[in-house]
């Protein structure tokens, strides 16, 4: 909210420097986001009268204007066309420096010397108006040669741009900010200058008001203003509005806006001539009703919205014929708008239920200065005070206006200001310091809370403080107000300690081990998008249940990823385009499985009040690696897995080729990682499918290795491995090493044969595959697997015959799998 300092000073004496005030406001939680000095640089600008306008030969965009600013005729070249002889305009003479540092010099244009510049309102930073010169006759009665600032009744001013927090509707006004300042600085808060009804006739003889639905409208006041003359606002009021960031429109509309900015109460003026039976009623909109709002959009009312619990309730203002005039507290309709012909005004000042305004405003996508205030909560006691202020402001330009006696004032349901108890010790418990009783009382009374009792206090919030709740929550609200005005910077600091130790969970600790390991294995850790397109995931598997975002920023970002492969291959492709494809990219992150197809959907509380059980996507943490270095392929992917598993102490996972096609992976060069014994799927290893490569990258076809691991499983296995702390001490006797090559049927896994060999004799210490051979010399559908076998005993040196016996046992065991010793 933009607030001129001069306006604040109407309500509280402020002698502080701008820096001091900024710092006080910040410390009150009224954060100053900008400070603008206005009127600076206008000291040299004076009022000049246009005496003659001449064309310049050969120029149709500029004219020669002869003005008098009190010191005789001056020739000035000017491009504006919106003025006539006799008008008064601002003149920046030669030597003047305009806002922004623009210095006026004598200039020659089209062979004519220009002795200064005639200015638009924007050039003077008085408004955004750049349609032409700032013609002063429209706003003041100008005097030739008078300094412009004096003529406009202006002094230099400072505009604070203050961000008002959502829980401070009371502070969303000049007076609200002044109230905080007055309390903090220990000064008096002045009351606004108010008018009183001056027409003896009662309002009820002329107009009507009513509330049909008291839950939606808590108070509706209708005041009648007669003999209204719609004309521009006086310059100083128009200027105030401009500085506060609003455009002056007419004295009636401006007065409404000024009151809203100054006191926080939105009001709505209706042309009484266009309100049937001069009656305003507030009621619930009915299904089928429509309204064309001032922005020229026809809106269907009472239609349920998307939000949780949004039944479609709209509060509308209707006339005496029950026709809808406006969406209450949000926006009016065009029919009853104030115009130049308006003579009688019905002024509505009301209190509407904040939540229903919030829902309507959200549902209709319609926000206004009024709705922003009503949805946070406008002081229900303020309505007629605001009207009295409105009339006082309107009188400045419309002295003949009459305010009819006994304004109509209908009550609905208004929230009762809560009373909160503050017990002895509450402040110390909450803030760590016991603020002195006098200071607490001074703060609360400054903020217009009512305080009673000694020691333990009963504190009643003012009607403006709709943010203050009852009970324990209200106590916290009051304590915050005390702390805020006392000053957060004055509160003590204490670093607490507790007996419970800080620690990572096992999962977090193991995740770190994993991350360190993959980085050691050459991974550049990446961060690819969670949200992708249907096309992205169609590459992996067409169709299928996908988790979608209903309101994506773009349609390519509407599906939650079910795999990180797409993102990583694409990221690799982009690096490859830059000649940087010789790299391994990897990511540790979640993928999302739709609850309809997930093995373990997550069930959680949801719905209003958390009363419903919802099935949410299974979030599966995975490690995915794309190996793109020169020479990387399924072999290096397998070796990388082997290194990773070894580093984490995992020995029970086997690489199992299978004929099922795994989406996105090479159909004949990919295998599953399976836990022996449980057959749990740990992940996949291999290469990416060339089709995926073609779709996602632009480069020439090549192999990319892939490792994709389910971390939910891997972490559990790693933890089990950590818990199994048994180690064996190697024997001290010599080791016998034997190489055995078998002709093995294609269907027998190398690792299974190794396992059989390991178990075939007590003295086998280790079995390692060291060569695979395929060739025409071997029977069809077989290959030769050569193992390096180590024999040892903890008790003795093995004799040749011990070794021979063991070797025979191994050959016999292998034959059970159909493997024959290769001769």
């Amino acid at each position: 909210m933009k607030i001129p300092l001069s306006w604040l000073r109407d309500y509280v004496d402020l002698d502080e420097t701008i820096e001091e005030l900024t710092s006080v406001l910040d410390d009150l939680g009224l954060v100053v986001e900008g400070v603008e000095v206005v009127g600076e640089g206008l000291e040299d600008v004076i009022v000049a009268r246009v005496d003659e306008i001449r064309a310049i030969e050969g120029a149709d965009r500029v004219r020669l204007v002869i003005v008098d600013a009190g010191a005789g005729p001056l020739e000035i070249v000017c491009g504006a066309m919106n003025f006539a002889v006799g008008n008064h305009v601002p003149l920046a003479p030669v030597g003047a420096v305009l806002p922004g540092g623009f210095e006026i010099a004598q200039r020659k244009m089209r062979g004519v010397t220009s002795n200064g510049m005639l200015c638009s309102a924007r050039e003077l930073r008085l408004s955004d108006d750049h349609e032409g010169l700032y013609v002063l006759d429209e706003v003041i009665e100008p005097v030739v040669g008078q300094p412009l600032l004096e003529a406009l009744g202006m002094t230099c001013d400072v505009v604070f741009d203050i961000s008002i927090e959502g829980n401070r509707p009371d502070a969303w006004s000049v007076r609200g900010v002044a109230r905080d300042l007055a309390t903090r600085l220990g000064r008096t808060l002045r009351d606004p200058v108010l008018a009183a009804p001056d027409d003896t006739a009662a309002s009820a003889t002329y107009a009507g008001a009513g509330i049909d639905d008291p839950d939606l409208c808590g108070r509706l006041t209708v005041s009648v203003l007669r003999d209204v003359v719609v004309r521009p606002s006086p310059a100083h009021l128009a200027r105030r509005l401009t500085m506060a960031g609003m455009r002056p429109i007419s004295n009636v509309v401006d007065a409404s806006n000024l009151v809203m900015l100054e006191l926080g109460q939105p009001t709505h003026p209706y042309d009484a001539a266009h309100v049937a039976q001069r009656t305003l009623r507030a009621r619930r909109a009915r299904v089928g009703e429509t309204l064309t709002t001032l922005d020229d959009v026809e809106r269907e009312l009472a239609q349920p919205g998307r939000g949780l619990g949004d039944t479609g309730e709209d509060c509308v203002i209707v006339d005496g014929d029950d026709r809808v005039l406006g969406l209450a507290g949000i926006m009016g309709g065009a029919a009853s708008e104030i115009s130049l012909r308006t003579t009688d005004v019905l002024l509505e000042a009301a209190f509407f239920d904040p939540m229903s305004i919030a829902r309507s405003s959200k549902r209709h996508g319609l926000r206004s200065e009024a709705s922003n205030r009503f949805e946070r909560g406008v002081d229900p006691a303020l309505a007629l005070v605001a009207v009295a202020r409105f009339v006082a402001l309107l009188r400045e330009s419309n002295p003949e206006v009459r305010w009819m006696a006994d304004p109509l004032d209908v009550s609905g349901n208004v929230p009762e200001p809560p009373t909160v108890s503050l017990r002895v010790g509450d402040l110390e418990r909450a803030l760590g310091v016991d603020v002195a009783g006098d200071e607490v009382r001074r703060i609360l009374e400054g903020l217009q809370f009512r305080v009673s009792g000694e020691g333990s206090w009963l504190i009643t919030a003012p009607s403006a403080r709709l943010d203050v709740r009852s009970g324990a929550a209200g106590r916290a609200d009051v304590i915050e107000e005390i702390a805020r005005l006392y000053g957060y910077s004055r509160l003590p600091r204490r670093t607490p300690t507790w007996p419970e130790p800080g620690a990572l969970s096992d999962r977090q600790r193991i995740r770190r081990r994993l991350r360190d390991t993959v980085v050691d294995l050459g991974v550049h850790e990446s961060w690819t998008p969670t949200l992708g397109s249907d096309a992205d995931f169609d590459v992996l598997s067409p169709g299928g249940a996908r988790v979608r975002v209903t309101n994506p920023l773009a349609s390519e970002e509407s599906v939650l990823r079910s795999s990180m492969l797409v993102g990583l291959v694409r990221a690799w492709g982009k690096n490859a385009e830059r000649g940087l494809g010789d790299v391994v990219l990897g990511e540790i992150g979640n993928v999302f499985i739709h609850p309809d197809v997930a093995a373990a959907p997550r069930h959680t509380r949801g719905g209003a009040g958390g009363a419903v059980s919802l099935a949410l996507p299974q979030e599966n943490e995975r490690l995915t690696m794309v190996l793109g270095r020169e020479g990387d392929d399924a072999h290096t992917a397998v070796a990388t897995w082997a290194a990773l598993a070894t580093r984490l102490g995992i020995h029970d996972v086997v690489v199992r080729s299978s004929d099922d096609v795994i989406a996105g992976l090479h159909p004949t060069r990919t295998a599953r990682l399976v836990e022996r014994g449980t057959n749990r799927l740990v992940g996949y290893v291999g290469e990416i499918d060339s089709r995926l490569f073609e779709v996602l990258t632009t480069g020439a076809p090549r192999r990319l290795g892939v490792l994709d691991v389910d971390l939910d499983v891997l972490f559990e296995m790693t933890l089990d491995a950590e818990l199994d702390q048994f180690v064996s001490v190697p024997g001290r006797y010599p080791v016998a090493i034997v190489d055995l090559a078998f002709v093995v049927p294609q269907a027998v896994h190398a690792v299974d044969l190794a396992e059989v060999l390991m178990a075939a004799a007590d003295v086998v210490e280790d079995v390692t595959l060291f060569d695979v051979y395929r060739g025409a010399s071997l029977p069809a559908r077989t290959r030769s697997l050569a193992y390096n076998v180590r024999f040892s005993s903890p008790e003795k040196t093995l004799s040749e015959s011990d070794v021979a016996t063991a070797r025979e046992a191994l050959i016999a065991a292998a034959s059970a799998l159909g493997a024959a010793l290769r001769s």
Partner: protein
Amino acid sequence: MTTSPLAELSTHVTDLIARIDRAATLADLHADEPFIVGKRSILSTLQKSLGALAPEERKSAGAQLQEARRGVEEAYHVRRTFLEEATRTQALEADRLDLGDVVVAKVSVPLAVGHPGIVAATQRQLEDVFVAMGFTVSDGPEVESDWYNFEALNIPPAHPARGMWDTFYVDLGEPETVVLRTHTSPTQVHLMEKAVAADSLPIHSVMPGRCYRRDTPDARHLAAFHQIEGLVVDRGISFADLAGVIETFTHSYFGPDISSRLRPAFFPFTEPSAEFEITCTICRGEGCRTCSQTGWIELGGCGMLDPAVLEAVGIDGDEWSGFAFGFGIDRCAQMRHQIADMRALIDNDVRFLRQFS
């Protein structure tokens, strides 16, 4: 009477389809293309001959020829798909590798050094600071219900305060009841609910994680980002403890010459609430462009747990009190490494990634 140029059409079609089916390889088929469906096809020749016909006849003959061409093209397409599949199958078979037979010892992998992600590395540093201060670390899901992300945090449905978060809604359940979490605060609710159920209060924990806001990415914001929040629920916890924890963290993470200050703010889930600022890490408090000459930069939000939150999770506010705080991990990384454009974090450009160790 002249013979219609299309008298032999069905024979031609049969011949063409036979020719298509004879093609044994993709190359054969491709070589035959001009004769089958291309310019040198009998169909094209016939097309040209139609010009000699009377307009009436030309129309019906044209339609007939078009029909025939469609049939041939269809057959061509079917054959091509078949041959492509066969070629691929053949190539895949030739490529077949039993990964169980990979001799790991024989695979040579270049000695390469990897790099941790900057976000993960920053998160780890932050976690370490908090663990040393006595906090545990908690993880939580990224997809949350309305209850955990909003309502239990004292942000009821349709409340204007929801406008503080630009929310991505997930298409599950009733409209707007499932969200991509907009902050890691839902994890706080889970923790408190669990502690109440297990009767295991107090809680001293931080919760780092990925969050989402429906915000067009720019140099300062990404639609996905990382946050770390902290939660303390214990006996006798006051605002002074909150301010002390923030200050200890600030010194510990940013260095002894960087301190913190709190200013009043509004968050629905805390009361009193504060924004916390730290000494500008660029100018060390002297005043510079980054801190708009104030010497301070905003880091995050914090406050005492609102009684409404304690009530929602079933914690007795007369016995227990607590505080929460939160700030951006990415933002810490940005400040520490002077990253001009946050979008670099999601570009995965190797030239960026390899700068972190």
